[in-house]
C-alpha cells in the first residue's frame, strides 16, 4: 500500500499551491470589495479553505499527518467562529435592519 | 355539577420518571395500533358489494302512478309547502280530454321539479301528500352529480316507470316511510 498515488506523481505540488493561492486571493478580494457582512464572512471562509487545501496538499506530498490534523483544527474553529459571527450579524440586523458594512457608521472610521 | 357520567377529570400531577420517558406509553400505543392492523377490515367494496339497507331508509324520490298507470299527483302543492328545504316546485295544468289514462284527476303537474342539492331527504313531502303520490324509496340512493344541470330532477326522472307498476314490488314501495316503519316495528316485534 505504500505506493505513491498517481496524482502525486503526475501533478507537481506547485500546481496545488498556485490553486490555493488563487483561491486565497479571491477570498481577499471578496473581503475588500464586498459590503455585505455575510459575504465578507464567506470570503473569509474561502480563504480558510484555501489554507486547508494547502495543508492537505503539503501533508499528502510530504506524507506527514500533522498537516491534516491542523486542517481538522481549522475546520472546527472555523465552525465556532461562524456560529459567533452569525449571531453577531443577526444581532446587528435586528437593530439596524442591514448587514451592509458601509452603512454601519455609528462609529466614525 | 356533573352533567354527564362520561366526563373525565384532568389531573395535572407531575409525571413520574417512567411516564416522562414516554417509551412505555409509546410501546403501549404501538401495541394498540398493531392490534388494529390485524383486525377484520370494515371496508365494503361498494360497487361490488353493497351494504344491506334498512327498510325505513329514505332514498330517492319517486312520483307514483296508480294501478292503471295514471299519475297520482294533482299538483296541489302541499308537498312544496311542507318541504323545509324548499326544494320542490311545480306547475299545475288542466287535464285535456283524452288524457284520462295519463292523469288520475282533472288537475295534474305539468312540471314537477326537485332540487336534489336542496333536498334533505326528510320525508315530509311524503307525509304531506294527500294523494299518496310522492314517496322516498328505501332501496335507491340519490346518485352523485358531475354537473349542476343534473341536479334538478324533473318529471322525466321522478315519475315511476311503467314497467314497475306491474310488479308486486310496486305495492310494497307504495308505502310511506312511516308505514314501513310501523311494518318494521311489527316485524321486529319491538313495540
Amino acid at each position, binding site marked *: 500500500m505504500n505506493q505513491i498515488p498517481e496524482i502525486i506523481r503526475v501533478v507537481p505540488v506547485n500546481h496545488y499551491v498556485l490553486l490555493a493561492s488563487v483561491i486565497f486571493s479571491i477570498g481577499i478580494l471578496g473581503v475588500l470589495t464586498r459590503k455585505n457582512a455575510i459575504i465578507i464572512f464567506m470570503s473569509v471562509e474561502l480563504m480558510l479553505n484555501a489554507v486547508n487545501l494547502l495543508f492537505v496538499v503539503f501533508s499528502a506530498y510530504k506524507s506527514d499527518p500533522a498537516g491534516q490534523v491542523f486542517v481538522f483544527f481549522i475546520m472546527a474553529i472555523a465552525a465556532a467562529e461562524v456560529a459567533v459571527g452569525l449571531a453577531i450579524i443577526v444581532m446587528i440586523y435586528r437593530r439596524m435592519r442591514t448587514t451592509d458594512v458601509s452603512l454601519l457608521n455609528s462609529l466614525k472610521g | 355539577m356533573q352533567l354527564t357520567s362520561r366526563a373525565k377529570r384532568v389531573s395535572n400531577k407531575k409525571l413520574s420518571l417512567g411516564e416522562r420517558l414516554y*417509551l412505555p406509553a*409509546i410501546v403501549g*400505543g*404501538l401495541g*394498540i*395500533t*398493531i392490534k*388494529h*392492523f390485524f*383486525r*377484520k*377490515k*370494515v*371496508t365494503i*367494496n361498494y360497487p361490488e358489494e353493497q351494504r344491506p339497507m334498512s327498510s325505513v331508509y329514505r332514498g330517492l324520490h319517486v312520483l307514483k302512478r296508480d294501478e292503471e298507470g295514471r299519475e297520482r299527483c294533482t299538483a296541489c302543492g302541499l308537498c312544496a309547502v311542507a318541504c323545509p328545504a324548499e326544494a320542490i316546485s311545480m306547475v299545475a295544468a288542466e287535464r285535456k280530454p283524452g288524457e284520462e289514462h295519463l292523469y288520475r284527476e282533472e288537475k295534474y303537474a305539468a312540471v314537477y321539479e326537485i332540487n336534489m342539492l336542496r333536498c334533505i331527504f326528510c320525508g315530509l313531502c311524503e307525509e304531506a301528500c294527500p294523494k299518496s303520490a310522492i314517496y322516498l324509496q328505501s332501496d335507491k340512493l340519490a346518485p352523485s352529480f358531475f354537473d349542476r344541470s343534473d341536479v334538478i330532477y324533473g318529471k322525466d326522472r321522478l315519475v315511476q316507470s311503467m314497467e314497475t307498476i306491474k310488479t308486486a314490488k310496486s305495492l310494497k314501495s307504495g308505502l310511506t316511510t312511516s308505514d314501513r316503519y310501523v311494518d318494521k316495528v311489527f316485524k321486529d316485534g319491538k313495540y
Partner: protein
Amino acid sequence: MDVYFFLAKAVIILLIFGITLLIATYSTYAERKVAAFIQDRLGPNRAGPWGLLQPIADAGKMFFKEDFIPANASKWLFIAGPSLAMLTACLTSCVIPFGGTLDLSFLGISELVPVQGIDVNIGILYVFGLVSLGVYGVMIGGWASNNKFSLLGAIRAASQNISYELAMSLSIIAIIMMTGSLSISQIVADQDSFYKWNVWRQPVGFIIFLVCAFAECNRTPFDLPECETELIGGYHTEYSSMKLGFYLFAEYINMFVSSAVISALYFGGYHFPGESLVAGLMPAGALGHNLLTLMGILVFFGKILFFIFFFMWVRWTIARFRYDQLMNLGWKSLIPLSIANILVTGVIILFLNS
C-alpha cells in the same frame, strides 16, 4: 482488480440502485396500505391486483400533471431543490453492505465480491455527509418558491435536521468506539452472532438513533416541516408534478436508507441468528457460500422492510410534536443522553480492556 470485478461491482451498484428505487416506490404503496390496515381499512386495491400497480399510476399522474413554476420564484434554484434532494437521497445507499461476499470464481473473478457499492473505510461519515447535505434540497426549494410558508417550512426542516444530526452522530460514536472502525461493513462484521448485535450492547444509543432517524426523515411525529395545519404543505407548497414527486420520493428513499443503516448498525445487518448452523448445512464451495450470502441479503432486506414498516407504524401511533417540544427533545434530552452514553461506553470499554 480485473475488468470482471468492476463489471460485477457495476452490476451490484445498478442492482442496489434499482432496488432502492423499487423499494421506495413501493413504500408509497406500503404507506397507504399500512395506514389503511391500522385504521381498519383496506387501502388501495383498484389498480392491479391488491392495488399493486398503484405506485405506477401515481408516478404516471405525477409525470403528466402541469409543471408549474411560480412567477417570482428563482427558476434555477426552484428546479435545483428537488433534484438535490433526490440526488443526496440516492447516493447514500452505495456504502451499505447488503450482504456478505459473493464467490464469483466461475466468472473468473478471483476475489470475493462484497455485496456493497463501495467499501470505504469511512462509510458512516459518508452517510452523515450526505445526510447533512440533504438539507440543501429542502432549503433551496423552500427559499426558491418565494413563498412565506415554503420558507418557514424550509427553515424548520433545516433547523430540525441540523439539531437531530448532532444527537445522531453522537449516538453513533459509541458504536464506533466499540468497533474501532468507521466502515459499515466492519461494524456489520463485528455483529456476527445474535447476542453481539449492537442493539443489545447499545440500547440507549439505538433509541436515540431511531428517534433521530425519524426526525431526519421528517417522519411523524417529527413531520413539522410539512405540517399541513400550520404551513399548508411546508417547503413543497409551491411544487407540483414530478418535482413534488421527487421530494416525496426522496423522503421514501431516505426512509429506506435509514432503515438499512439502522439494521446494519444495530441489528447485525445481514447476519441472522443461527447463521453458523445454516452455514454447516450448506453445500461446500462457491454455491454454498453464495447461497448463504443470498440468505443474508434476504434477511437484511427483511430487516429493512420491518423498519420501513416500523416507520409507518409509528406514524399512525404517535401524534405530531409541537415545535418547541421538538427542539427541547433534541437539544435538552437526546444530546445530553447521547453524550452520557458515550461516556458510559468509554468507561466500560476502559474497564473491559484493563
